[in-house]
């Protein structure tokens, strides 16, 4: 019975060893095994990282083959059932020194390229442009420093697809309301921070992953070599929406980028214009429902009932039914020490007005109050004094 078990041991252990080997060989041929290995990426840093990854991997494979080779040989040749008699050796200073020194040398060999890559990765100097990335529960804000352009980027996969009542699209959970548009060939410095909890901005194709820490600004950089759409995700646990705040980067040639930027500036000016308009209740309710579902429903839920013990209900709540002034204050400035963010800097005046109007009139909160964008603007200005 014992002897039957052994070839099986070896075969299985062999599989464990060979699987990564096979997969990597295939991955370099660019076949359907692509999803098994780290992407090579489209930046100099990502390629350095990939090469390091592969180098260390192959070193490990070689060590593994030698070490496990000796082990499997013993398991095959030194079995009691084959009449092996045990030796009694149990020390050899020479051997023990050798296998302390050799691994140390191998580690030194690894440390050199790793150091070079790290120096490169940390060199954020002489950037052509700065993008400030601010993480919120559960979306990203991108600000083009010095351009006056900023916007929120959040998951655009509908809840119905997540809960399986509608089909999932090709980029399920990897699609956003508005992608980050970047020019190729430019050194872009990212300034990364967060407004609530920790997040991490990760785009595998750039080998950029950096924690977003509330109250601190982290720096990192990239230079994208090829135009394309690159997808990433939040990599630091940030609450229940952790899996639902993807990153999409649209890398385009510089002229296209400049055109996009000019268009974006015009659009933002038009949006600011809207803030001085007056809207009717129905209009605000429609806008409000849409904006509420985008920005508020993750916590307060689509039906306004919140989650008991964590996120308060808005349906019948004292804030939604009480003084407008207080409602504006909570939405615009947030509530310190809780998960309620300050939305004043995240959303336009129109959206804020629509959301507040919606919250005061939906789910049976029939106050009949209408809050106009100008009211929001006035409140903000009054606060700033």
């Amino acid at each position: 019975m014992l002897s039957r078990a052994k070839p099986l041991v070896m075969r299985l252990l062999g599989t464990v060893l060979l699987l990564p080997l096979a997969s990597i060989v295939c991955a370099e041929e660019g076949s359907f095994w692509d999803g098994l290995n780290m992407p090579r990426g489209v930046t100099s840093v990502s390629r350095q990282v990939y090469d390091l990854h592969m180098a260390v991997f192959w070193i490990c494979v070689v060590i593994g083959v030698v070490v496990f080779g000796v082990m499997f040989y013993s398991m095959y040749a030194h079995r009691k059932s084959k009449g092996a008699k045990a030796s009694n050796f149990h020390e050899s200073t020479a051997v023990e020194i050798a296998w302390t020194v050799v691994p140390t040398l191998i580690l030194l060999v690894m440390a050199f390229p790793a150091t070079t890559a790290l120096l490169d990765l940390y060199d954020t100097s002489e950037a052509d442009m700065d993008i400030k990335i601010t993480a919120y529960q559960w979306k990203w804000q991108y600000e083009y420093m010095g351009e006056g352009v900023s916007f929120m980027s959040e998951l655009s996969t509908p809840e119905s697809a997540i809960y399986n009542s509608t089909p999932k699209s090709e980029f399920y959970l990897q699609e956003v309301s508005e992608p980050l548009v970047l020019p190729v060939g430019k050194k872009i410095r990212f300034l990364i921070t967060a407004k609530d909890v920790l997040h991490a901005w990760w785009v595998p194709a750039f080998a950029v992953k950096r924690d977003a820490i509330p109250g601190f600004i982290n720096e990192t950089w990239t230079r994208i070599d090829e135009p394309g759409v690159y997808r990433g995700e939040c990599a630091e646990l940030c609450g229940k929406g952790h899996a639902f705040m993807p990153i999409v980067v649209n890398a385009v040639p510089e002229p296209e980028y400049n055109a996009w930027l000019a268009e974006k500036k015009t659009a933002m000016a038009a949006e600011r214009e809207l803030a001085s308009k007056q809207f009717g209740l129905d209009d605000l309710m429609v806008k409000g429902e849409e904006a509420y579902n985008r920005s508020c429903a993750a916590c307060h839920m689509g039906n306004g009932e919140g989650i008991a013990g964590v996120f308060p209900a808005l349906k019948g709540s004292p804030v939604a039914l009480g003084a407008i002034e207080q409602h504006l204050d909570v939405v615009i400035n947030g509530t310190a020490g809780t998960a309620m963010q300050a939305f004043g800097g995240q959303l336009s005046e129109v959206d804020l007005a629509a959301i507040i109007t919606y919250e005061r009139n939906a789910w049976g909160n029939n106050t009949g109050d209408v809050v106009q964008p100008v009211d929001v603007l006035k409140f903000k200005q009054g606060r700033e004094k």
Partner: protein
Amino acid sequence: MAHGPAQGITRWLYTTNHKDIGTLYLWFSFAMFLLGGFFAMVIRAELFEPGMQIVKPEFFNQMTTMHGLVMVFGAIMPVFVGLANWQIPMMIGAPDMALPRMNNLSFWILPFAFALMASTLFMEGGGPNFGWTFYAPLSTTYAPDSVNYFIFAVHILGASSIMGSINIIATVLNMRAPGMTMMKMPLFVWTWLITAFLLVAVMPVLAGAVTMMLMDINFGTSFFDAAGGGDPVLFQHVFWFFGHPEVYIIILPAFGVISQIIPTFSRKPLFGYSSMVYATAAIAFLSFIVWAHHMFTVGMPLAGELYFMYATLLIAVPTGVKVFNWITTMFRGSLTFETPMLFAIAVVVLFTLGGFTGLMLAIAPADIQYHDSYFVVAHFHYVMVAGAVFAATGAVYYWLPKWCGRMYDETLGKTQFWISFIGFNITFFPQHFLGLAGMPRRYADYALQFADWNMVSSIGAFIYGASQLLFLFIVVQAIRNGRPVSEPKTWEGAEGLEWTLPTPVPYHTFTTPPEVR
């Protein structure tokens, strides 16, 4: 003079006998293992397919958190304390642990700690949902109210660990039989002695971390809140100053177990005994100076990043020495492959694979890609499960016949090994692919390109989970109906004081110290 145990429940409540307390620890840790395993099954069931099917994301986060906490603090740490309680006095020729009443206390506060922790799942707002590493401010400002119960539970189990470790240190240093010099101690005793020092050093750090959380949440301090002059990254430094030695706290006793099992079934003395001892001490020392390799993406200064990378790489040296010594022990031995040996060999192979991925993770620039992805999940399950849990399972098969004088069913044991081994690899090997392809850890739902390997991983997890029920069956069957064994040495090649005792071992052993030559 020897007398038997008290009857009924009071035997277990009031016991100061190291064997009884060892048994309590072992059963408790197995119960926690099943509970944590159940949480894992919920996680893998939800991840079987893209989309949310079974639980909501907020509950999913509670499952990942509780799975980690229960497995680390409830299953793996106590199982080795249980083994230490049973084995250390018998291995060094002592009649019992040095501090038997404290031993009782350190066990009996554990069930309360975990009852408290598990009860949070039923509270309004749910249980801890911030990951087993509970990074601030998700675990402070943004935590559910139940976080205070969690903090109290961590304090209690920390106290339990500290008492357990003091007991082990006192026992090993004071109660060795005449002639049992330090450098004659079995390696399991050595690894536990070093582990106990690690525990005494770092459990207070953990207590400090959760106390600072408690202050931030309830008393208006701002240790981890930048708005009040604090720093969320401080939390991570404090946590990992505890957390990294904790990893070795878990794995060193497993190394000890392997160093007992492999020589027995190789019928050959352990190769390089003294280098094993020095390697263990070196690993323990290094474990204190590498903590920030868990934080390569927080934006440390370049110098810090380089230092932690170099220091981390160094750990490969003593760890490699251990693996080489085990393999050289097997070399030109006379090998047989009973269940404990199968588990020991699996530990050497799979732990080494986990070591290789550890080496890859140590390379800071590459870690930028691996960090917080499923690659890390695969890595630490290769170390924690295939390292620590497999070693503990092997240890139970190895010593159970000695403890209760009954043999487990060898065929069933081997079957259980193969199911565990295959299930484990189907579960965790594909997670390397998922991580490299870009799937972050702690995701309740994922993009479609990750669907295939997640399904494979879930199937493996159900197989591995089922194999643990078979393990329970095998152990219960052995205790109740196993073939009686009475020779002192269960295994032909076994060496050491515990194998000089009658089988099953009497309730009190070495009431007169043995002579060690």
